[in-house]
């Protein structure tokens, strides 16, 4: 009934309280929440207002889950009253919840359109100042989604210049994000211009104007993006476009610095793409092999099944260091451990060749090292009778490579190998014969005396 608690605290204006309490990451236990609430109000019955509005919220969520946009809108109509909640904590949480639910509804509702969405976004931006930037950003993304680049850009520019109240750290990141998205849009225009430029002849009268344009854009964009990518996080699209522009203007050192920082800075979350970007850059720059190997070594640890692993293998194979060549074998086995790579003919071809080479080079121990941990499951995983049949049917070349590997690892008695041998194929006949000979000679099952 009489609730003076808020009054005692005095009226709280919206901008005094930080959002972090709400957006803070962590686990959420609904039952715990209600328990805490009852403790907080001293075991008193929760107000019906609080009960019905939380019931309303779950009805909205359920409707959204079932894609019942109309029903969701109906409940939303009532849920707006949480903006006037007498509980100041809940009142401050309301705009963000309403924005998230409302924008979702308006995004999908059949009767909704761009105009409704824009009005809604503009309204929500101005309820309290805490959400202005976040909503502006999401509004811009919505516009982007609908291909309205100009409106999105205008929106971001407005948000960028918006100033209200104190600057807090969470707001700082948001500003950076907004600027970076603006930068990304600028990159998009730049990229289009660059395409135009590449179509034009150097002697074309328009060439200089376009070139000038391209240059101006780049300058603005780099300023916009560079601030963001210094903050730890995953910024793939930003980094990629930023580097592309740096490279275009010949600032290789700058690009390398950005990429190295992005890949190696420990404050950043582990991100395979960071290493891929760096590797691709180094490849373009024709960097020394050792450098590229060290980059891919890290990628190998994060994603051993990545398609770049085959390139990694070729690099290692060519290396003079014995250690590298052993690693080359390891990488190939690693790739084929993954179900998604079982039909990768290149991988099998490489493995067949490299196994033979390794065995010829008297490195039986290397092979055994790899094989020991796999001999329990590879036969049924790769070399079953079923696979032999289906591989032969689908791709005889693949079947041959696999048969060779099977022969080398399991001996000539292996079912896969025997099945392929039995197949009488005119073109592959010679190859199979050669294979049979090699197996006899090198198979690890009957080591030569």
């Amino acid at each position, binding site marked *: 009934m009489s609730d003076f608690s808020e009054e005692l605290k005095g009226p709280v204006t919206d901008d005094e309280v930080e959002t972090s309490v709400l957006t803070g990451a962590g686990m959420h236990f609904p039952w715990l929440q209600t328990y805490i609430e009852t403790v907080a109000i001293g075991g008193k019955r929760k107000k019906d207002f609080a009960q*019905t509005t939380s019931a309303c919220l779950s009805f909205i969520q359920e409707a959204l889950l079932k894609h019942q946009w*109309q029903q969701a809108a*109906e*409940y939303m109509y009532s849920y707006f009253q949480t*903006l*006037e909640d007498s509980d100041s904590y809940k009142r401050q949480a309301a705009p963000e919840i309403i924005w998230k639910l409302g924008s979702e509804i308006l995004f999908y509702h059949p009767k909704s359109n761009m105009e409704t969405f824009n009005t*809604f976004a503009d309204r929500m931006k101005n309820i309290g100042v805490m959400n202005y930037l976040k909503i502006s950003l999401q509004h811009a993304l919505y516009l982007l989604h609908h291909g309205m680049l100009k409106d999105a850009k205008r929106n971001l520019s407005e948000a960028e210049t918006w100033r209200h109240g104190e600057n807090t750290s969470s707001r700082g990141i948001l500003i950076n994000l907004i600027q970076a998205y603006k930068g990304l849009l600028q990159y998009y225009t730049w990229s289009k211009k660059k395409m135009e430029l590449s179509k034009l002849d150097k002697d074309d009268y328009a060439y200089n104007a376009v070139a000038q344009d391209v240059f101006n854009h780049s300058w603005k964009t780099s300023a916009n993006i560079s601030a963001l990518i210094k903050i730890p996080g995953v910024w793939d699209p930003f980094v990629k476009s930023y580097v592309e522009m740096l490279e275009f203007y010949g600032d290789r050192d700058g690009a390398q610095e950005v990429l190295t920082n992005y890949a190696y800075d420990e404050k950043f979350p582990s991100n395979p793409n960071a290493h891929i970007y760096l590797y691709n850059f180094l490849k373009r720059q024709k960097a020394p092999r050792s450098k590229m190997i060290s980059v891919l070594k890290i990628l190998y640890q994060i994603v051993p099944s990545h398609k770049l692993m085959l390139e990694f293998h070729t690099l290692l194979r060519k290396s003079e260091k014995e250690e590298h060549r052993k690693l080359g074998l390891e990488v190939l086995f690693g790739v084929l451990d993954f179900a998604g790579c079982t039909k990768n003919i290149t991988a099998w071809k490489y493995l067949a060749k490299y196994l033979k080479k390794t065995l010829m080079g008297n490195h039986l121990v290397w092979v055994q090292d790899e094989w020991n941990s796999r001999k329990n499951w590879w036969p049924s995983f790769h070399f079953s009778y079923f696979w032999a049949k289906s591989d032969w049917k689908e791709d005889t070349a693949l079947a041959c490579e696999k048969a060779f590997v099977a022969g080398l690892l399991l001996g000539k008695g292996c079912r896969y190998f025997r099945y392929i041998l039995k197949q009488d194929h005119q073109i592959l006949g010679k190859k199979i014969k050669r294979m049979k000979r090699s197996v006899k000679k090198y198979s690890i099952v009957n080591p030569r005396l």
Partner: protein
Amino acid sequence: MDLEEAEEFKERCSQCAAVSWGLTDEGKYYCTSCHNVTERSQEVINTDLIPNTLIKALNRGLKKKNNSEKGWDWYVCEGFQNILCQQAEALKNLGIGPELKNDVLHNFWKRYLQKSKQAYCKNPVYTTGRKPTVLKDNLSHSDWASEPELLSDVSCPPFLESGVESQSDIHTRKPFPISKASQSETTVCSGSLDGVEYSQRKEKGIVKMTMPQTLAFCYLSLLWQREAITLSDLLRFVEEDHIPYINAFQHFPEQMKLYGRDRGIFGIESWPDYEDIYKKTIEVGTFLDLPRFPDITEDCYLHPNILCMKYLMEVNLPDEMHNLTCHVVKMTGMGEVDFLTFDPIAKMAKTVKYDVQAVAIIVVVLKLLFLLDDNLEWSLSNLAEKHNEKNKKDKPWFDFRKWYQIMKKAFDEKKQKWEEARAKYLWKSEKPLYYSFVDKPVAYKKREMVVNLQKQFSTLVDSTATAGKKSPSSFQFNWTEEDTDRTCFHGHSLQGVLKEKGQSLLTKNSLYWLSTQKFCRCYCTHVTTYEESNYSLSYQFILNLFSFLLRIKTSLLHEEVSLVEKKLFEKKYSVTKKKSRSKKARRH
């Protein structure tokens, strides 16, 4: 220059602090001691037309404008008076006789004001704690000619009094001296004159008016009039917005401004709770020192025999069960006038929860007939089903299983709808409540925002989905013979579960289990506890169904069932504690 007319302006002069005002020709106040002219001007009320001193006094009170922003001067109890008036009006629209408003409720209220020393007495409690000088000042020239008359008014039994005062009286009565002078100096604010003081007041032995208390007053008057509305009906009508309660303050006259502490007093964000209002009713009845209420006899709606009939119809049970409920009522003595009639002056003032009790009796009868142990009721249903298949022309036997299936479906649907309607309930008033004038624009801006957003979303809502308010009804379920989907069991017979023995009918089922073995004797408020999982599913379903109908907690109904059983099997409780069996012989 009219000195007398300027008397109503009570603020101290800003220059010499005297309270002595005259009126200039333009109607502005000027200080007679230092001739300082204020910005304030007298409110233009044409008192010449009605040369009546009483009206003049009224103008000084309620209608007096302090300044246009702040509205009229008004007291908290006037706010409650206005709300009671609205509620009485709503009850009248529901078909309750006009006497309820004009005589009963009116007199209860006057008695309350007197008992709580707010009016109709020599020294109203109101001005204590205020500046005594102001009070004295006020009393010295107050023209309370009507005071003795009003006092004598109440001293005679209020219920015999005819409508001496007209209805408009309720709105405009202004029995308190004004002490606005001190108000303008205080910082903690409220729109009413005494809101701050009121919210802090705690006086022993005096029942303070609150929002739920208004419903206690309504129920008390309904009870006095023996109207056909139970407490659960009343509260359901409140929830369905047929009786003003939540945001009732938004219908106050435009000039009665609410803010600050008034928010805690009049703004309410919960629906009334059955037990709470029940308790408050007794509290108010005792506080008002009311005499014994009119007798609840067998022809009254609140008598268990009639209520049982009503609830049997409501939940689609056979009419024949009514004989059994009447029998239980007779055996337990729950139909007796002394038991049923509310007597606030009795030593232990208590009233009966008529609706809960009637429903509890039905539950007991169901237990007598079907045992409700998740076993017997189903085997009896099998018998009934077979019998009905064979004899299609006869009056069908009541089939518990079939009844359960139909009721379960209807109940689930109703409950779902009820939950949805609750989730959609709009709590906030068109007039936002704010803490102070500083917050006012913020509150209004928020309000406007909400209205705009709602307007926008209402275009997305299917217009057919939002039908208007349903009309009030004391029935929530409707069973008719014509509806083929939903079988109506009213005409079904209980032959399958009763057997004849000589002239009397016995229940086929000879077993019974008590809902409660032990009653709490400690100081906790509940009679016994209800742990759902300890009871059979049929019993749970029946309790859930009935407690939903009454909008009460299941545990409350369980307690009432236990109390009925206690009365029915009194001997078993007191003599032996053996497994109790039902009384076998039931005469009809």
